[in-house]
């Protein structure tokens, strides 16, 4: 894929690399600064592997105070900083710049406090998303946002991107599940915002920081809401002879007043790849598949699934299958959650993250097919159908530069189509470097200026994760 335009690296900073590394080593424990070429290689990209850039160095602090010292030093010396969790960003959110260091929070991964009565957990942000749920699951609790990468991705990255997941239809995304955080600003100030209370005083700075793509500060601790899990949950598979029928069925379920905990959609190409990988028993002779999951007691689950099947009847579902065991449920979800990995086994792909109004599903899927045909590329569609979050995977051959460029342009057209349909460029992955130049399709210059002034107030010199989110032409430099 064609590399994005970068800002001209600061020659002074590039030239001072040895000095910067030496000074960083004074600020953190031994072994926390990675400066050799092999070591740095691990930080040159994230899950958007098409883009690569070696940083000056990577530093992995073990405390908030160390983060503060690092940022203060970098601010004073004009060194750019790319915050990083586990590097699972699909939009290049953690892509380094040549004149930047990478600041990784992965060593700060402890659970600090759990209060089941207040239903809160205070954790360091290098903990994985799943690590939070693992810590509270013995008492029947869980942390709700569940991005597909939840085994690897950190809370820090989830906070930066305001991550969602398959189950956010019922439980909301990251911003709906965080009550407080500790953030280190670029000048080294450590600020606590919110806490265990459900409301914080003054402006909703917490809400502004979540989803700011690591551009406001480095969040080192957070207080998250933990929820008691329902008595049980069970997914059901329903196949359909067209994507339109599946989409109409989702609308009918929601209009009936039932909000399942998740409704996932896959089209035929996606079903085949996921089935080959997970052996989940997905039907292979249908054009579209819905995974509908409901929660409650045994009786409630049966009742809800029966009602949903009744609602689905006019849309002529084929191959309805209700999971019969926890193992079967796990396999059904494994197939869906490994979709990106499974697809990666057969082809390079470019994963889009547009959102559309559900009523436009059929029209948008037709549009996507037409766009992909025009670019002579194959596409598989995966969709958080309940909330309209569409993940078309555009398949291409990364070693063929012409295909890579076609994939990028094809993806951009797909996202423009989503915006035109009343949706947005990104539902849960973030803008990063990938969709930066598409922001004008959704926002006016005035819209973005209102956002960029907030960046400036947190980070006046634009040193934190710069050259992302906003079109380069608007960058203050």
């Amino acid at each position, binding site marked *: 894929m064609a590399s994005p335009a970068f800002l001209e690296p600061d020659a002074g900073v590039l030239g001072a690399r040895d000095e910067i590394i030496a000074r960083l080593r004074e600020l953190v424990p031994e072994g926390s600064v990675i400066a050799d070429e092999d070591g740095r290689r691990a930080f040159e990209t994230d899950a958007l592997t098409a883009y690569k850039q070696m940083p000056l160095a990577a530093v992995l602090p073990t405390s908030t105070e160390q983060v503060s010292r690092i940022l203060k030093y970098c601010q004073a010396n004009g060194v750019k900083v790319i915050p990083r969790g586990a590097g699972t960003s699909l939009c290049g959110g953690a892509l380094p710049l040549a004149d930047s260091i990478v600041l990784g929070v992965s060593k700060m991964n402890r659970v600090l406090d759990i209060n089941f009565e207040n239903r809160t957990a205070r954790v360091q942000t290098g903990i994985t998303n799943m690590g939070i749920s693992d810590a509270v699951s013995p008492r029947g609790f869980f942390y709700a946002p569940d991005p597909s990468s939840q085994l690897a991705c950190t809370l820090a990255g989830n906070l930066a991107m305001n991550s969602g997941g398959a189950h956010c239809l019922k439980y909301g995304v990251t911003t709906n599940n965080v009550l407080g955080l500790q953030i280190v600003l670029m000048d080294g100030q450590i600020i606590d915002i919110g806490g265990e209370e459900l*409301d914080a005083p003054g402006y909703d*700075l917490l809400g502004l920081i979540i989803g700011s793509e690591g551009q406001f500060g480095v969040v080192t601790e957070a207080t998250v809401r933990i929820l008691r899990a329902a008595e049980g949950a069970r997914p059901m598979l329903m196949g359909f002879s067209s994507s339109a029928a599946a989409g109409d069925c989702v609308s009918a379920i929601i209009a009936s*007043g039932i909000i399942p905990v998740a409704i996932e959609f896959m089209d035929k190409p996606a079903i085949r790849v996921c089935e080959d990988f997970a052996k989940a028993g997905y039907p292979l002779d249908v054009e579209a598949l819905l995974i509908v999951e409901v929660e409650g007691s045994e009786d409630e689950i049966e009742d809800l699934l029966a009602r949903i099947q009744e609602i689905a009847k006019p849309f002529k579902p084929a191959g309805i299958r209700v999971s019969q065991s926890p193992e079967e449920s796990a396999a059904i979800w494994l197939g869906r959650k490994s979709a990106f990995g499974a697809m990666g086994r057969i082809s390079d792909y470019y994963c889009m993250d547009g959102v559309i109004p559900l009523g436009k599903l059929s029209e948008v899927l037709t549009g996507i097919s037409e766009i992909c045909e025009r670019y002579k590329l194959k596409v598989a569609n995966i969709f958080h159908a309940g*909330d309209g979050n569409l993940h078309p995977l555009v398949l291409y051959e990364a070693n063929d530069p012409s295909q890579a460029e076609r994939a990028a342009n094809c993806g951009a057209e797909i996202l423009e189509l989503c915006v035109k349909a009343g949706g947005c460029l*990104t539902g849960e992955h973030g803008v990063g470097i990938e969709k930066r130049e598409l*922001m004008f399709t*959704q*926002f006016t210059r005035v819209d973005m*200026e209102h956002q960029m002034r907030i960046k400036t107030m947190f980070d006046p010199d634009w040193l934190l994760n710069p050259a992302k989110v906003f079109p380069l032409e608007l960058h203050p430099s």
Partner: protein
Amino acid sequence: MSELIRPNDEEELTAAVAEANSSRTPLEVIGAGSKRDIGRPLQTAACLTTEKLTGLTLYEPSELVLSARAGTPLIEIEETLAGNDQQLAFEPVDLGPMLGQDAGAATIGGVFAANLSGSRRIQIGAARDHLLGFRAVSGRGEIFKSGGRVMKNVTGYDLCRGLSGSWGTLAVMSEVTMKVLPRAQCTRTILLIGLTDEIAIDAMCAAIGSPFDVSGTVHLHGEFAAKLIDSGILRRPGPVTALRLENIESSLEYRCARLTESLEAFGKPVELDDGASRKFWSGMRTLNFLQGSSDPVWRISTAPKNGARLVAALARRLDCRVAYDWSGGLIWLLATPSADAGAAEVGRVVAEIGGYATLIRADASLRGSVNVFQQLSPGVMALTRKLKHSFDPAGILNPGRMYPGI
């Protein structure tokens, strides 16, 4: 009387704010004005109201989304939703009646500007969690938007959260888009009678931490309980703890039974049926226990498990009556009138135990002399000033309503 500016559309709204910005004319910004008596008193030459910006602009029940111009009465939106068996799940409290205004006067813009949520907040989130998008005019006199009409959206910074609860000090919203949800088919309430604050909070935390999807947990001191519950339900006066369950009827039978069983240690409960339940919770929504008085009211937010300790500490020096919501995490405190409405004591105790306090009801002179909104830490205050400046550099929108100079 200050000049009243009533723009008819977004264009006129933009022009009015731009004019005020260039002439540096401070504006009081209101919807219907039902919460005008909350916050530090304003002294402005003009008042800008969104009351003429009305009407729904989008409603797609099967997509759970509704858009309306900011001045649309909340009551109109709720009626439309009810017609489709839907609702605003965060059930915004109606502060009007306890401030001596009519019930149901609030505009939808005012609901988000004040981030008003009701008892269901503990289960489903606050107003801010349901705001999907908006159009607004910032203090710069420029129209801008954020978010959109879809359920998930991380495109650009999250200004929907940023503007929620900013009390019209950053921008004047012209249109808001929100997530709506199905209305529960049936409601039941379990009442536990005579519990102390501390034990009541244990019961509420146990209930909300159960797998039965409890959607409201309140505990009322005796004199408040009497106002909320029709005579006949309770034979003797005393404190009442109420736990709400909502769902389809068949499922409620089961959940009620299981929840009651799990709370056995807290005594024998009384159950309210659908009609009585809805009446009870609608009384909570209008805070009817605070109506008919002009005594000062504080709203204190804290960690649920600190609620009882906080109230006990306050009761040592303040004569107060209390209702807890959000499992103990939200305290409505009716104080006896005094020179500072108890501000010094409330401030001291909240600082010691943790949480924050807002003076919701007090006369203007008091609101001008004590902290209406909780003081912020120096770091947060510095960010607050910068945020205000970035949206409203001339400081024309509701200047000083939240904090001096903001």
